[in-house]
């Protein structure tokens, strides 16, 4: 496993992004040992939640985690979430406000509990996490996730910029489609596309900021448009570090993110996404983001060759094509800076790389 070195100093802010090639997890240090975790993926070597595994390795007690955010329920963002919640006894669990209604709760219960032998991976993990969490909080635009007036003498906070109220109604309509009805057919419940319900987090470090874009996309007046068109959102601290939304895709891009939510030429990080021949980020995405950033880093750049015995691969090729491994290599990108400094330092671990 990686040698992460010591943890951040009390007066250092940190953003670390983990990615196994499919999935992502983030950890943010505000200062004074105050940690926020966002989403979850597993460390391949020991199958532990990557973020809490990291904290344990750098000597941070898990009681330091003040909040855990499940930015949305897709299985690449919540693998190991329930375990992570169980490991952090003092953390509140924050989820998208789209679940705070009868239809969405029924959706989670139907596809996440053990009532029926049909599970949607993400729903199952989220349901388990909510069952374990001592306190579960729904967030939507303008919600406060974490607030502290005395970290290194500064006022700091993390707020949600999404989902907007319109998205809540949109999700209810989707969830209602899959409501369990006696004698009705059980259907598999796919993820909502595009992703409009993810929680985007704006972090104010008292003079500097971090923007975590989750997997939010844009459609009509929902998604990013509902953020960059909202006066309150635009008044938040501009960020000098950005976890790029939706793996750098064009659907997760909005020009006003870069002009209105981010400072000039921020440092950027993203995780890859592979689904068969569909790869994110593609070269056009990388070029676009690089032009807007002072540096762009990716959490995983592992091999995409099938990890299957040659003879079996030959048989599979008779029926299938573009056979690719889901997990292509685990890596992490870490940004650190002393509060008040201008420049972030960058550390790369495993198969992480600069783009």
């Amino acid at each position, binding site marked *: 496993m990686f040698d992460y070195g010591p943890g951040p100093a009390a007066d250092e802010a940190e953003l670390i992004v983990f990615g196994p090639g499919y999935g992502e997890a983030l950890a943010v240090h505000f200062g004074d040992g105050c940690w926020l975790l966002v989403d979850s993926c597993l460390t391949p070597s020991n199958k532990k939640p990557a973020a809490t595994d990291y904290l344990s390795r750098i000597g941070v007690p898990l009681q330091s985690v003040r909040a855990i955010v499940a930015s949305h329920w897709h299985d690449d963002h919540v693998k190991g979430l329930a375990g992570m919640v169980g490991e952090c006894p003092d953390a509140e669990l924050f989820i998208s406000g789209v679940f705070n209604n009868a239809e969405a*709760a029924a959706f989670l219960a139907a596809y996440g509990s053990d009532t029926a032998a049909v599970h949607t991976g993400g729903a199952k993990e989220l349901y388990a996490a909510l069952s374990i969490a001592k306190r579960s909080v729904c967030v939507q635009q303008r919600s406060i996730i974490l607030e502290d007036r005395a970290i290194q003498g500064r006022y700091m906070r993390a707020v949600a910029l999404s989902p907007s109220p319109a998205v809540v109604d949109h999700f209810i309509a989707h969830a209602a489609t899959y409501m369990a009805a006696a004698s009705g057919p059980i259907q598999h419940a796919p993820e909502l596309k595009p992703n409009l319900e993810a929680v985007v987090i704006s972090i104010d470090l008292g003079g500097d900021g971090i923007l975590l874009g989750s997997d939010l996309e844009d459609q009509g007046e929902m998604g990013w448009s509902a953020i960059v068109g909202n006066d309150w959102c635009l008044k938040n601290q501009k960020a000098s570090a950005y976890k790029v939304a939706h793996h750098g895709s064009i659907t997760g891009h909005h020009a006003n993110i870069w002009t209105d939510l981010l400072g000039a030429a921020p440092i950027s990080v993203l995780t890859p996404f592979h689904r068969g021949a569909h790869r994110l980020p593609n070269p056009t995405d990388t070029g676009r983001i690089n032009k807007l950033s002072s540096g762009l880093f990716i959490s995983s750049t592992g091999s995409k060759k099938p990890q299957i015995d040659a003879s079996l691969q030959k048989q599979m090729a008779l*029926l299938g094509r573009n056979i690719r491994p889901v997990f292509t290599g685990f890596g992490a990108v870490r940004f650190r800076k002393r509060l008040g400094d201008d420049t972030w330092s960058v550390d790369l671990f495993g198969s992480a790389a600069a783009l």
Partner: protein
Amino acid sequence: MNQHLSAAADSNLPDVGLLTSLPLQLPLNSSLPLRKVMSERRMAVTDFDRGSDNNEVEIPTRIARLAPHVINVKGYVAPKVGALAAVLQVWEGVVLEVDPDQQIMLVKLADRQGLVAEHTAELGLDWVVAQDMELVRPGAVFYWTIYRETKRSTIKHSQEIRFRRLPNWTNRQVEAINSKATALLSKLTVARQAT
């Protein structure tokens, strides 16, 4: 593509396939009592849950154990005695996307024995049997079996893709879901809003 070990597509009897796609509810005109079918289904599940590679048995015997309806299908021609089959790989797949224009489905594959890493692949829809086509949608679960048949020193590889059929929701399940949803909602609080 369906090799002869799967149920014939033209049968009027319930199509059971080779794996856990045995229907939980038989049609009223089924000739087999439900108890016998359920015991056969448990046997089918056990074969793969063992994770054993020792699956070489005579094909007719194996079919009789796992899919008795296949033997009774009109027009079905059982392979001759003496053939042996070994399962090389069983993937449990989930459909991620369906592209009707290109007639392919993007799938995620998990090894049933947990020995091979997860993969994604694109499969042609023409490899799905006709009676499973209605089941093909994002989120649908299927089993892709690859096996080797040895018959009098001739080796032949065969593959089969069969989709999992889900039963209907029962009253009891719906009640349980509503109860769990109520409990879940009661646990959720709303975050404080920033001014």
